[in-house]
């Protein structure tokens, strides 16, 4: 019998410090058994359990895109027992990943549509996966305009800075990078909160679908902006977080009403969330 609790063994191949506070690092993992990479076939929006022997597991969104081969990447904020231990691990260390878990962004529905991505802080990980996926030459023709609003507190707190700069140079994706504030005189992008910049830069909801990931406060103030622009709740897509253990809908803790965030989510439309108890 397949054991859905058994992690694939992986080696940490590369560690990148992402933010100036050094609290966010990106880990590239390589599967010890090459055949496991094929078994770990994922779609942007999904997550996995990072598993460390002796410590436990944490559910983390997959930051790499399935179009990137040979590794999987996760950007991890240092908060608890497992993530703190992981932050002290070194390249070459062996651990496990278990997944992919959960559902994904509605790629089928997004085909032929304008895609608006709104992200804040360190919730940008599965959005990075999505952007890399969409701008891949094989996939780009499937989507119309791609517009990204991404904000962090300061320039130093933005994730994936080199990639952001590269995307800024492209003409097939519209980038609106913003920070809450900065005293950097050379800062050449926006200053302002994500909801404000969204209001300024996104002009139409026509044939568009919005994916929103960020801290609760950002989501709370972005939602009315999108609704005012004319996005119906079915076309506002959110990704939720919850404390999890099993990741496969069995251990019972990540439910919102009769839905498990791990198995029925983590991606829900605003229309779905409005039917669910506000317990998240």
């Amino acid at each position, binding site marked *: *019998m*397949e*054991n*859905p*609790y*058994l*992690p694939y*063994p992986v080696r940490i191949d590369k560690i990148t410090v992402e933010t100036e506070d050094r609290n966010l690092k990106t880990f590239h993992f390589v599967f*010890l058994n090459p055949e496991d990479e094929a078994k770990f076939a994922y779609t942007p929006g999904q997550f996995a359990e990072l*598993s*460390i*022997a*002796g*410590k*436990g*597991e*944490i559910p983390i969104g997959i930051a790499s895109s399935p179009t990137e081969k040979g590794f999987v990447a996760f950007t991890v904020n240092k*908060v*608890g027992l497992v*993530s703190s231990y992981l932050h002290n691990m070194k390249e070459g*260390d*062996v*651990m*496990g990943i278990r997944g992919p878990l959960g559902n994904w962004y509605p790629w089928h529905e997004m085909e032929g549509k304008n895609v608006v991505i709104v992200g804040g802080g360190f919730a940008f990980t599965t959005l990075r996966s999505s952007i890399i996926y969409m701008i891949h030459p094989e996939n780009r023709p499937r989507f119309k305009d791609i517009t990204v609003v991404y904000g962090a507190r300061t320039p130093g707190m933005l994730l994936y800075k080199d990639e952001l700069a590269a995307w800024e140079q492209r003409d097939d994706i519209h980038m609106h990078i913003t920070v809450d504030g900065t005293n950097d005189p050379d800062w050449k992008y926006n200053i302002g909160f994500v909801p404000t910049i969204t209001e300024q830069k996104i002009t139409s909801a026509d044939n568009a679908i919005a994916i929103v990931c960020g801290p*609760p406060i950002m989501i709370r103030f972005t939602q009315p902006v999108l609704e005012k622009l004319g996005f119906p709740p079915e076309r506002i897509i959110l990704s939720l*977080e*919850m*404390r999890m*253990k*099993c990741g*496969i*809908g*069995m*251990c*019972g*803790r*990540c*439910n*919102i*009403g*009769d839905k498990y965030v791990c*198995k029925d989510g983590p991606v829900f439309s605003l229309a779905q969330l409005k*039917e*669910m*108890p506000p*317990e*998240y």
Partner: protein
Amino acid sequence: MTERVYTKEEWIRGLEGLREDYTLFVPVKDGDFHAFMPMNGEKVPDFDFQNTRLSPKSVIYPRSERLFEYILGNADPEANILKESSKDFSPRAIVGIRPCDAQAFQIVRRNFDNPEYRDPWWVRHFESTTLVGLGCNEPCSTCFCTAVGGGPFHEDGLDALVFDLGERYLIKGLTDKGEAFLAKMNGGKPADEAVLKAAEDLTASASQKITSSPPTDPLKGKKINDLFNAPFWEEVAFGCLNCGTCTYLCPTCWCFDVQDEVLGKEGDRIRNWDSCMFPLFTLHGSGHNPRDKKVQRVRQRFMHKLKYYVDKYDNGVQCSGCGRCVRYCPVNIDIRDVCERMNNY
């Protein structure tokens, strides 16, 4: 279907003879209560009880269970890689399980054995276990199995069912597993018409003794958000101590935690029963907790059992009516009362 009659002495001797083929779990008097324990020649089985304090849930789903083991460090190439712990999945039988507790395994099975994922430990423990039920001649005042699709002699979920006819037992095989159990058991003789009639009468009279029966059918038609926002939760939760006795005793509560335990350079990944009554159950790493208040946790328990489960599986409530949570709640919170409130809201 095999139907055999045993004298009570023959029955115990028959069980003794089965210890070669099965690890038998039987009710044993333990202080003021009865508990399911392995029949190992030391403890005498005692089938004269209303119900055990704990259901035999832990035979299939242990309170703590080793899932994986590993060694730590860098010296060994196999270090830090989890290996499934070896387990004994040889045949077991729970003899004397009440029909409600057997029904509970069917309820829990929908969580652990579904089209997307199968829990390898729960499923294998369940498949290797034969459930030999003992009908309830005298249900407790807190029993309400008849309100949730069961009954004191309900057969669904059982492999065989025993009727206590005073001097003798009638045992009926109900499934292949049950028939295999009976085929291996020595003694007994075929049941005659009079015995079968006596069993029928007993079934009818026992069902009539269950008087508390909040209907559970109306729950399906309610809206989750309406019940979630109902005004009575504060009142229901007022006396609750969040002690977790209800979830611990409940044969249909399945929530678990997973923890790593390390001793020196060796470790195990273990799962333990958990409880939605505890704030840690849902505490995020960030410090945020979607159910940080008692009333939210109490609501979660009842909504899960009486509404979320109903909507998710369309197969009744997540409750087998055993009444343990009613009997042992230190502040007398009664699921039958909560069910009535939900029905009437």
